[in-house]
Every structure is written in C-alpha cells, then in structure tokens.
C-alpha cells in the first residue's frame, strides 16, 4: 500500500500549497479593495500616465487627498491625526433634515465623519428654504434625506451617507440609533425628543439635543457619558431635565411660532461642534466628565449666549433611573405612548354647528347684502393679517383677548366695536385654521358683548378654508 500513501502525501502537499496561494491572493484582493474604498474618486495619477499597479503600497493612515481636505483642522492640537482617524471611523446620526439638521450634517460631512446617517420622512417645501440650507429651490418636492445626502456627498465624496426616508418611530428607533456612535436630535416635536432620548438611553449613546423657536435657541448634551440605565456615572437624559411635558397649548412649532433662519442655523452648527468634540476626544476618562450645562441663545437678549449649570441624572428617572422599567422590548412594542405623554392636541371643538358658518356661506351672505351690519374679527397675529385678509375684517390679535384689561372690562365697549353698530349685529371671528376663532368667540360670549340675541360665532376652517372656498389668490401661511 506504500504507493497509495505516498500519492496521498503528495496530494496533501499540493492542497496546502494551493491554499497558501489562495490566502495570498485573497489578502492582495482585500488590500486593493480597501484602497479603492478609501479613494473613491478616479485616481489623479492614472491621468498622468502612471499605471496604479506600479505605485508602491500606500503606507500612511490618510490619503493625500484627505490630508489636503482636512489640513486646516488636522493641524489643530485638539484634533491631530488621531482625532481625524476617529472622525473617519465614526458613525453619527442626524435625526431631522430641517433647520437644525441641514447645517449640522453639512459641518459633520465637511469634517470627514465616516458614516453620516440621516433620518427624515418629510419632503422639501418652499417655506423650508429660508433656513434649511442644504435644500434648494430645484429640490422642492424631493425627500429631505435625499436632498441633504446629495448636498453632503457633493461637499465631501469621502464620506458615506445612509438615508432613512422615514420618521423615527418606537418600532424603528432603537435599531437605527444602535448603529451609530453619537446621535443629534434635530427634530421639531416633543414626541420625537422623548423617543430619541429613550432610544439613546437604551442603546447607551450620547445625544446632542438642540431646539429653536422665533429668536431663541437651546442646546444640551445628554446621556454623556452614556452609562447603563441606573448607573450614577451617566449624564442626564432628556427626561431628567424635562420629566413632565407641559400640556399642549403652550407648544409652538416653527410653522406656528415662526423662526429666524440664522437662529436655528447657529444651533445646528453648535450641534455639529459638540458632536465633533465628542468623537475627536474619544471615550472621556471618567474623572473629567464636565457638569451638564444648558446653553441658551437669544438673538435679542443680553448676553446672546448663556450657559446654565444643570442637574445630573435623576435617580427616579423613567428612562435612565435606578428602578426604570423601560426596555428595548417595551419601546418596540409601543408600551410608551409618546402622543399621550406629550398630550398631542386634537382640533378644538367648542362651538356648536349653529355657532359656525362656512367661508363660502359668509362670502355669499355678504355678496347678497353688501350693507349687512356686522363685525368680522380677524384674530390672527398682525404679521399674518398684514399679508392678506378678508375685506372689512378688523384685526384684534388673539393674545389681546387674554390681556387682563380686555377680559376685565365687563360691559364697556371695545375700540373695534363701532358705536353706530346695532347692539344685536352679529360678530364673526376668523383665524388661521379655525381653532383660535372658537376660543375667541367663546371669550366674547363670556364677556357679554352686546345683547343676548347677538350672534357670536366663527368662520369654520379659518383663512385656510377662505382660500379654498372663496379666494384662491389670497396668500396663506
């Protein structure tokens, strides 16, 4: 049997050689592939006639193009090569591709964050463009994440953008958040703010949270360091700082309250800065954790920037506290009702059908009887009223109804009610979409404005309905 065993030995040797060769080929292939990934744009040297094969293997951590691109931040002692390499291997998630998310993502892309995740389910609208700097007139109607990803990769082709064209939900939040090192909350609603914070606590990720409205902004770095639930070493979460949500009628969005572009821009840029600081410094040595602070920005305040010392983790916090029952399963199965917790407001229904008139009915009533004695009160803010209003409407902003002097005047006649008007002439109230008008009409009734027979009611659906039913040309914002 000797020839057979010698044959077997030969075959074993051949196989071993072939395997060694295969290993060598695989290793070469992976080196070539890595180089291609690190260097996505066409190699300049191929245009100069030097074939890439004869170049000696690149022996430096950054490619020449990357060194040039990041040179000005790379030479900062606080960044350096180590910091740049951390940025390159970091994954940062920007939730919200709007007024905060656009500038934040732009600076993160510019700085060379390796993987930039972008989450937003909205599409670009014209009213976004004065502040959401990555979008443009030609991108109206496009998914915000597609528009922002395009902007970021145009700015820096060395980075990878991961697009999530969806809103963050309790079902998808933790699985998205867990893939990233740092999370930026660039959203515009309390429900998403609590959800993102909970997902960050569960996934142990630091959260850079900012918000802006009108001329004010707020910024705070949360869950930093991101210690496990119940650990006293972790930083406070959003719920530690704001354990209860206030009832909803105090909440304004940028759409309702207004926002100055540079105000939200400043806050987004600061978020990028905080995220870059977190990535570049790497895991902070535990004794050097700074006390949490809330930064307040006010365009009209003095001083413009203020820093407030904040509390640490709340031991009884619902999310990060010592006896918290919040788990990934509980989050994903919808056991936390964010809408309920934040008291999301449904449309106001306080006037009965006989106290309301449609925009079309009001319009034809006036057309049939031009001299009809009545008052039409437009209770929107002056700024809205000035842009376009119903002919003959008198502007008495809703806030005026809340002033002490107005509410307390009892039987006296307000300025807007003409002396010549019969005491039973009807009063119609109109607002933007038909919520405040009901509240104002109710208030007028309580103030006993005129005789008991006087009709006091509102135009259903407000100026939005007026535009749809009566005058398509009127500007509506």
């Amino acid at each position, binding site marked *: 049997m000797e020839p057979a065993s010698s044959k077997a030995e030969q075959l074993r040797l051949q196989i071993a050689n072939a395997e060694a060769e295969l290993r060598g080929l695989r290793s070469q292939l992976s080196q070539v592939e890595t180089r291609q990934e690190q260097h996505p744009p066409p190699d300049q040297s191929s245009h100069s006639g030097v074939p890439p094969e004869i170049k000696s293997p690149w022996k430096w951590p950054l490619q020449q193009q990357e060194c040039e691109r990041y040179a000005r931040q790379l030479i900062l002692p606080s960044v350096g090569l180590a910091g740049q390499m951390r940025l390159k291997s970091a994954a940062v998630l920007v939730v919200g591709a709007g*007024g905060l998310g656009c500038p934040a993502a732009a600076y993160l892309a510019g700085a060379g964050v390796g993987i930039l995740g972008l989450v937003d389910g909205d599409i670009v609208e014209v009213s976004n463009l004065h502040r959401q700097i990555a979008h443009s007139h030609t991108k109206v109607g496009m998914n915000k994440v597609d528009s922002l990803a395009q902007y970021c990769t145009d700015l820096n082709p060395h980075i990878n953008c991961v697009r999530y064209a969806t809103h963050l939900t309790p079902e998808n939040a933790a699985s998205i958040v867990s893939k990233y090192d740092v999370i930026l909350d660039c959203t515009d609603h309390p429900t998403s703010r609590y959800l993102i914070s909970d997902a960050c606590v569960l996934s142990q990720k630091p959260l850079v949270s900012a918000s*802006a*409205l009108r001329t004010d902004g*707020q910024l705070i770095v949360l869950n930093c360091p991101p210690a496990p639930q119940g650990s006293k070493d972790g930083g406070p979460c959003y719920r530690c700082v*704001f354990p209860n949500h206030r*009832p909803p009628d105090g909440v304004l969005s940028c759409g309702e309250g207004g926002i100055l572009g540079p105000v939200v821009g400043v806050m987004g840029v600061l978020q990028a800065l905080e995220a870059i600081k977190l990535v570049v410094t790497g895991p902070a040595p535990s004794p050097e954790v700074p006390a949490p602070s809330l930064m307040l920005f006010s365009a009209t305040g003095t001083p413009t920037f203020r820093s407030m*010392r*904040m*509390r640490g983790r709340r031991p009884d916090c619902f999310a990060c506290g010592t006896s918290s029952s919040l788990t990934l399963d509980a989050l994903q199965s919808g056991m936390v009702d964010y809408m309920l917790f934040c008291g999301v407001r449904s449309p106001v229904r306080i006037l009965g059908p006989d106290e309301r008139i449609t925009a079309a009915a009001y319009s034809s009533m006036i057309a049939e009887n031009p001299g009809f004695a009545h008052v039409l009160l437009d209770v929107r803010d002056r700024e809205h009223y000035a842009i376009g209003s119903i002919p003959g409407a008198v502007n008495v902003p809703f806030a005026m109804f809340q002033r*002490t002097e107005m509410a307390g005047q009892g039987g006296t006649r307000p300025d807007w009610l003409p002396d010549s008007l019969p005491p039973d002439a009807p009063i119609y109230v109109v607002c933007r979409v038909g919520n405040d008008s009901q509240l104002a009409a109710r208030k007028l009734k309580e103030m006993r404005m005129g005789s008991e027979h006087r009709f006091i009611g509102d135009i259903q659906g407000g100026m939005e309905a007026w535009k749809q039913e009566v005058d398509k040309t009127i500007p509506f914002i």
Partner: protein
Amino acid sequence: MAVEVEAASPEVAKMPVVVEFSGGLEMLFSDQRRHSLSIPVTTSEGKPATVAFLIDYLCRNTMKDTRKELFVLDDHLRPGILVLINDADWELEGEEAYEIQSGDNILFVSTLHGG
C-alpha cells in the same frame, strides 16, 4: 428694564431682584424679557421670600395676561418651564423652597421644540 413699583405700606422691607423670561414666556409679561423688581423680603406671615412666593407674586403683580395657567398649574410652576437661579438649575438650589437673596437673578425658560 423698567422698574415696576407697586404701592405698599412703607414698613415692608423690599429687596431688588432681576426676573427674566425667555422661550416665549415673556408673552405673558407684557412682551418684556427682563424685569427689575423690588419684592418683599418676607411674606405676609413673616417667612423669608422663596421662589414659590416669587411665582405667586409675579402672577399677582407682574403678569399682564389672563392665561395664568400657562405659567402656573395646580399651584405649582407649569411643567416644561425651567427655573434658573443665578445661572444654575433651581433643582441644584432647593427648587420652590429656595430663599431669595437680594440681587438674585431668576430666569424662567420655556422649553423649545422647534427645529
């Protein structure tokens, strides 16, 4: 920066404080962010003036809006409003029980959500 003076019996000792509102709360206080006030050093029962006393005082004397419920709910400050005493979260200072000192700066900030 108007100094708001109210008629009071001369024997009540007063102290100066600066009260500020931001994040939209100024809307309830004549659209004025900064109020330099002179408030009683002690309550009518002779106890030191606390932040709880100040909140009630503001509702009675400074607020020019009927929507008191946007500032106070169930006799406590409305959730979602942060109080910062001399640039520190009031939770670090004893919350409502903090005894106000002459010259203190008390800032009421409403949480913002826009973005």
